[in-house]
């Protein structure tokens, strides 16, 4: 086609915009991460010292915690979200839409507010402690806030809908006749689920896991509000290096590490989990 002028007029502006405000900034981060320069856009020599700095027990603890919490969040969202999606897909058609809307609305709520709600509930003079002391289950207020557990609860609460929606979409597409056929052939309960339902919904599971893992790994608000120093994750470390410590090259190296981890996670989920599931389905 000789439509290059039309292509340039339509695709050009937005692509140019993303090149300037997305690609260029990332190139600046990448260059700074591998440079001896102290600030973005400054000249410097190639070095790996900012990445060597990451291999320090203090920082490795944060990285390991980020990975662990993101994985735990994904597993918990899956364990809660799959049955929820299954329950919704078994409702009557008209009720399904209502149930989905009820479930999706909280995911529109601002993250700061959702996590703030957990501060109100978990702090020393919060709802949980008032109940525990009121019923005599505990004589002293417990320190529930600023723990890894609080971060985990906040992350699951924040991202649960991202797990339920793709799984529900996959379950909806399952050919119910196959389930009937499986039942007629004598498969029941767990066996029916493992051999008929799970393989067909695996696509939704993978998408949900990727969403939740990537969102949790890069989270800042939840660990910042609910974790404090003991619940710090890589996003908080990056913010700390950028805005407080002002060690920008190190912040850049951490950002590059986070992007690499996100990309690796996507590849692993899609390739490994997808392939394993495909074999099991056979």
């Amino acid at each position: 086609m000789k439509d290059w002028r039309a292509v340039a007029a339509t695709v050009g502006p937005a692509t140019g915009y993303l090149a300037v405000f997305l690609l260029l900034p990332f190139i600046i981060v990448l260059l700074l991460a591998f440079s001896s320069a102290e600030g973005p856009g400054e000249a410097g020599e190639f070095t790996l010292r900012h990445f060597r700095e990451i291999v320090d027990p203090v920082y490795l603890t944060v990285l390991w915690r980020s990975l662990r919490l993101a994985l735990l969040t994904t597993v918990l969202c899956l364990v809660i979200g799959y049955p929820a999606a299954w329950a919704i897909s078994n409702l009557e058609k008209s009720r399904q839409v209502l149930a989905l809307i009820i479930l999706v609305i909280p995911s529109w709520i601002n993250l700061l507010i959702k996590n703030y709600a957990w501060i109100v509930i978990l702090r020393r003079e919060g709802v949980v402690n008032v109940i525990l002391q009121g019923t005599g289950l505990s004589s002293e207020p417990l320190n529930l806030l600023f723990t890894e557990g609080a971060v985990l609860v906040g992350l699951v609460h924040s991202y649960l809908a991202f797990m339920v929606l793709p799984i529900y979409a996959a379950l909806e597409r399952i050919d119910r006749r196959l389930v009937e056929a499986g039942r007629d052939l004598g498969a029941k309960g767990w066996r029916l689920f493992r051999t008929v339902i799970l393989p067909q919904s695996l696509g939704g599971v993978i998408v949900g896991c990727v969403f939740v893992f990537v969102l949790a790994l890069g989270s800042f608000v939840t660990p910042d509000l609910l974790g404090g120093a003991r619940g710090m994750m890589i996003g908080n470390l990056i913010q700390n290096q950028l805005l407080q410590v002002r060690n920008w090259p190190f912040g850049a190296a951490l950002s590059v590490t986070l992007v690499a981890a996100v990309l690796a996670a996507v590849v692993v989920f899609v390739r490994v989990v997808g392939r394993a599931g495909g074999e099991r389905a056979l």
Partner: protein
Amino acid sequence: MKRQWRLAGLVGVFLFAYLPILVVVAYSFNDSRFALTWNGFTLRWYRVLLQSPEFLAALENTAIVGLTSTLIATVLGTLLAVGLYLYRFAGSSIVRALLYVTVILPDIVMAVGLLMFYVAVQFTLGRNSVILAHVTFQIPFVALVVGGRLQAFPRVLLEAAGDLGAGRIQRARVIILPLILPGIIAGAAIAFTLSIDDFLITYFTAGVGASTIPVRIYSMLKRGVTPDVNALATLMLATTFLLGWLGLKLSRVREEKLA
């Protein structure tokens, strides 16, 4: 019996999703500074909030940033979608990949990149830097939503109009625009929601004096739990529910019209 267990579980999940938020709403009407016990109904914290100059300034910033960025992103994103879906060209897969990368990139990384970019090119941080930053994450969503409308686009119409002598501009105005208008409106609504909802990228690129409502909430939270935070959170919730309800209503009207 099995069915009852399933429903009970579902209700449990709903409670987990809503209960924490309802506690905040209840506390926002509680006439007690320390919010421990119920001391009676009050609108005091809403008065405190609405009289705070910081809140009003943040509200103004949120509105200006939201509207301006949405306008720019809707134009750029719609053009992009039209180009991507109606023409075949070398490099279209790269542009598509760029869109998905923008969606999946963690906010914190985009925030760091934009801050470093502004510092490198010596762009003063303020309302303008925030608007330009928001357009960046809005474009892909507008393009994907409008693109969804274009997937089922009857190309024959364009060819027919061309055969009848309509020029490129005329075809765009008379055929493409009316068909994708619902997509453009939906895309703009999503872009606006993303803008007023964003905290992290605004926080990094706002500098001093360009705080939006989410940034304001954050700085209030950092100073501790106060009743006016509950009031602000409740107002944000009400806005979210109102926008969501409007969106659902609009989409339902659209479906009925199409049917």
